[in-house]
């Protein structure tokens, strides 16, 4: 069963209820909450069940036992928490967990809820003098299980208090990284006097929160920044230490920040036009495709020339957005601020006009309301370029820079999927297009209708099996992260995969497969032969009995 994270967060401080509606007979959910590491009962754990929109909570006894009575048949969501433990669903992995089937023939009264003790990461952020840095933004970065473990995302973030302390609690076991973004409290970022004279427009880049930090004349001592720093105090994430935590482990991770001189860049060749506005923002990529926003200060030096300051050293992406009469265009420049100096932005004027037509099945022309998005594959956490669909299905993007983009279509009507893309003046590969920027691109995007569904039962040794990872992967091996579907089999062994694009797939059921980085090429090789091949047509529903496989040991690397 899948439950979005948001609902889990809202259940974190449950209200206690003591009376439930007494229906004659009715079914029960009951069991025991045990510490997942020590196996001893968790006294007075808070246990809740949800059915539709209604949630009921109870407190387990000192022996960890709980019971809910008078229930109607159906599937329930079971959650538990206690001080010192995570807040999780029954056999939860990422956003998936085992739903409780209640009714005739189901045993829902002898559940063993292994509640995992929380892992905690805590520590102090200090500066070059050993003093606390307050108000530093600490980011907890983890691997995204739902995308096969490759992509990283910011799981949580906190601001340090006056002692420089932060604390991330209620964590599951796993590997985490810490990144810290902060400003030296004494920093006064400098803008050259030329820029200050022209300042009607000394602006602050996106995401800025620079409070009292006016640009002063204080000289180099105060013209400093903290680069994004990773535990324990390095600025290159490749040399940062990840923290591998087991359930119940508490780990102290202190980070020390070192101020470095702020870098200044001159951007020339910018045309703003009369009455237009220009905005410069900067982001830094960490762990591959995760983009973190930076604070910048920028201002005009002379017509067409801008100064950007407050930049940390390193590889950055500058985003220049010009807004003129409600038309905005955005361009990005990769810059290495360590080299400093001047960047000629005019060389990036070459953008391609991308326009095209969206085709849907005959008779469904009304469905063509929505938007098209081009996502830069090197910066997947940034929103992409958007174009609204017109009534006739045409769309037009503002100038797009050369690069490789993934096409996304958001139609207001549900049940559509991107079936095919063809392009003039761009290379197409699946749902990806490569724009070289030479000439204008014309796209034809065909939408198919009718997402499919696969449901069924997972069996092991002839009996339904709960808690098994059910994974449906495209037979072609392409678009694994987007087109695969995952579920965890419920207490009656059933699973439900929906929203499936028509095509060829392999259905796998792997016991304890949750830490498999299945999106990595070759990771699923040992399992494919025992999986079930199937072909799903539009709107088709299939019912399957899947046989659970054991997780095999990772393949040994062969070779010198």
């Amino acid at each position: 069963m899948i439950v979005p994270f948001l609902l889990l967060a809202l259940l974190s401080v449950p209200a206690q209820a003591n009376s439930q509606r007494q229906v004659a007979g009715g079914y029960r959910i009951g069991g025991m909450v045990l510490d997942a590491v020590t196996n001893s009962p968790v006294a007075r754990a808070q246990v809740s069940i949800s059915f539709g929109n209604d949630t009921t909570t109870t407190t387990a006894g000192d022996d960890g036992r709980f019971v809910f009575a008078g229930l109607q048949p159906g599937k329930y969501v079971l959650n538990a928490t206690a001080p010192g433990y995570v807040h999780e669903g029954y056999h939860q992995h990422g956003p998936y967990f085992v739903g409780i089937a209640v009714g005739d023939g189901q045993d829902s009264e002898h559940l063993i809820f292994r509640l995992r003790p929380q892992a905690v990461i805590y520590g102090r952020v200090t500066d070059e003098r050993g003093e606390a840095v307050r108000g530093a933004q600490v980011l907890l970065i983890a691997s995204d299980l739902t995308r096969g473990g490759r992509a990283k995302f910011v799981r949580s973030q906190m601001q340090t208090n006056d002692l420089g302390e932060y604390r991330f609690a209620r964590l599951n076991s796993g590997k985490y990284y810490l990144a810290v973004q902060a400003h030296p409290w004494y920093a006064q970022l400098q803008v050259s006097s030329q820029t200050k004279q022209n300042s009607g427009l000394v602006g602050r880049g996106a995401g800025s929160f620079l409070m009292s930090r006016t640009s002063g004349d204080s000289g180099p001592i105060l013209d400093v920044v903290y680069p994004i720093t990773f535990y324990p105090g390095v600025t290159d994430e490749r040399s940062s230490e990840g923290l591998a935590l087991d359930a119940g482990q508490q780990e102290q991770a202190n980070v020390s920040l070192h101020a470095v001189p702020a870098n200044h860049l001159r951007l020339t060749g910018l045309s703003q036009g009369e009455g237009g506005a220009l905005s410069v923002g900067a982001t830094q990529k960490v762990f591959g495709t995760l983009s973190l926003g930076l604070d910048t200060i920028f201002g005009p030096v002379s017509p067409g020339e801008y100064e950007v300051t407050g930049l940390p050293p390193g590889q950055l992406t500058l985003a220049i957005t010009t807004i003129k009469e409600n038309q905005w265009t955005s361009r990005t420049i990769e810059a290495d601020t360590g080299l400093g100096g001047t960047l000629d932005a005019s060389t990036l004027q070459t953008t391609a006009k991308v326009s095209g037509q969206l085709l849907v099945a005959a008779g469904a022309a009304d469905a063509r309301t929505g938007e098209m998005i081009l996502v830069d594959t090197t910066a997947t956490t940034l929103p992409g370029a958007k174009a609204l669909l017109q009534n006739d299905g045409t769309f037009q993007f503002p100038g797009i820079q050369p690069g490789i983009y993934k096409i996304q279509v958001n139609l207001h009507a549900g049940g559509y999927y991107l079936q095919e893309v063809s392009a003039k003046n761009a290379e197409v590969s699946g749902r990806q297009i490569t724009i070289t920027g030479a000439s204008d691109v014309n796209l034809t995007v065909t939408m198919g209708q009718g997402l499919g569904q696969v449901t069924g039962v997972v069996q092991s040794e002839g009996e339904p099996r709960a808690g098994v990872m059910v994974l449906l992967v495209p037979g072609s091996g392409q678009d694994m992260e987007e087109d695969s579907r995952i579920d965890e089999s419920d207490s009656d062994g059933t699973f439900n995969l929906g929203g499936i694009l028509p095509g060829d797939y392999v259905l796998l059921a792997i016991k304890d497969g949750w830490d498999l980085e299945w999106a990595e090429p070759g990771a699923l090789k040992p399992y494919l032969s025992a999986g079930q091949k199937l072909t799903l047509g539009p709107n088709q529903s299939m019912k399957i009995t899947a046989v659970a496989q054991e997780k095999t040991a990772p393949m040994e690397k062969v070779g010198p």
Partner: protein
Amino acid sequence: MRSYFWLLVNLALALVWHTQIPSASAQEITPKLGEFRGRVVNSVTGEPVPYALVQIYAPEQKVQFTPSDGTFVFTDLPPGSYSPVARKPGFFNDQELSIPTQPTLIQAAQSEPVVLKLTPEAIIYGEVKNENEQPLEGVVVRAQQWQVVNGQRQLVTLGNASTDDEGDFRLSDLRQGHYYLSFPSTNGGGWTTTYQLSSKKQEEQGYGAQFYPGVSDLKSATVIEIRPGAQVHIVQTLRRERLFEVAGVVHGADPESGFNLMLMNASGDFVQNNIRINRKTGQFQIQGAPEGVYMLRVTANRRQALRDTGSGLLALVDEEPRPLTATLPLQVHGDVSGLVVALGTGTSIGVEVHDETADNNRANRPHQVLLQMAPHEFSGFSTEIMMPPSPADRRATTRFEGLAPDTYAVEARPTGPWYISSLRCGSEDLLRDDLTVSQGALPPIAVTLRDDGAQLTVNVKEKGQAAIAGILLFSSDYPRRSQFLGSATSLSTSNVAPGTYYVIAIRGAESLEFRNPAVMARYLAHATEVTLGPRAKVTVVAEVQPEEQQP
């Protein structure tokens, strides 16, 4: 022979000394560059403050970090007056605490070492538990203080924090003073809105809004007195209480877009937990309301459409003028059911602007006034309208709609160099009194704008010498016209409504309730009375109030 030798040495020395004298006169022509020494200390402990930033303008900015002994030295300064400023996180300097400081005069080569005081912040930290001694996570803790804002006493939140998984919280950056700790309803943080009614009757328990040490109203709360640099430890036990359901039906909303509900208590917090709405029938259920007095506001959701502006930007177009609202006061002592809320009803009051300024014939750019009506109990539900509306604003409204019965403070703020010469609702003079709204209809609020205000210049003196103090302009006829003009030795203000005023110069003027005649009465004896006519230009001298009058 010896005496001759010594005579020669003396002569030689005399010669050397004399040759130095001409260069000494050369030094007298160019001024000697000065040195500025000092120390930064903790105002409570007297200990030096390491790694503080000291800034001086000479005239360009010079900065230094103090080493561990807190000292600093600036050299090569031309003679003059300097005001060094010290800063460090976790401290407040004299400027931030509005303590007047005298600049230091640097004349000779060395000046007396200056002591810069930094006042340490105070901290309130502690734990929040339930009756079973279990820590409570995600509880919001607020430090609140009575402060005078714009001459009126208000409860201001100076810091807030949220308890972590161990129930711990920490509030920092606090100045000395008297604080209340409040724990707004902790029924889960956000609230959910679902579109299905629940037939389940469930007794819910949770935490209502509480103040330290565990009472539900501010009057019985304990004041925490904080001195500079204090570290105060608080343990708060929150008691569970029964939570109730408020249910009813809303008439007049569009079944497609629906409506939303807000249940607000007198502290300005939203207390609803779960909201369930049936858009078709307009029925609603609000769960999780503790016992208390509330204001329920229902707002119809706007019908909206997406419109392409033609270049990659999507614009949300509101298809309606201002959405309909309804506001009603509510007392919850148990489950409430059967409420009927009709959108668009409730008292409505029109607004008329009489523009008596000289250049008021500008049809497409009328002179505008911002009007605000704030109910006494529930200041979070104040409404504002701009009158007359801009011609381009299709959604403008010219009436206050859906007002619940209450007493309202009505404020009018002109958006340009004009003053409010009259603000009335029928026979009620709103410059003096509040407006009581009950069931009946009310005449429109009439606002009159004029631009023949007076100009007033104030020079502050103390015992014959120019001095710095806060300058208040108090009107006993119309206390709401009273203003805080600023802190200076001399300043000018224009656009003052004609009338009789008292000019009061006093230190700490910002913390006075200058709109409260009872508070201001004691200062009138030493104030300067001035009567301003239309377009008059008047200069007065205000004598700083004697010491015993200082607040």
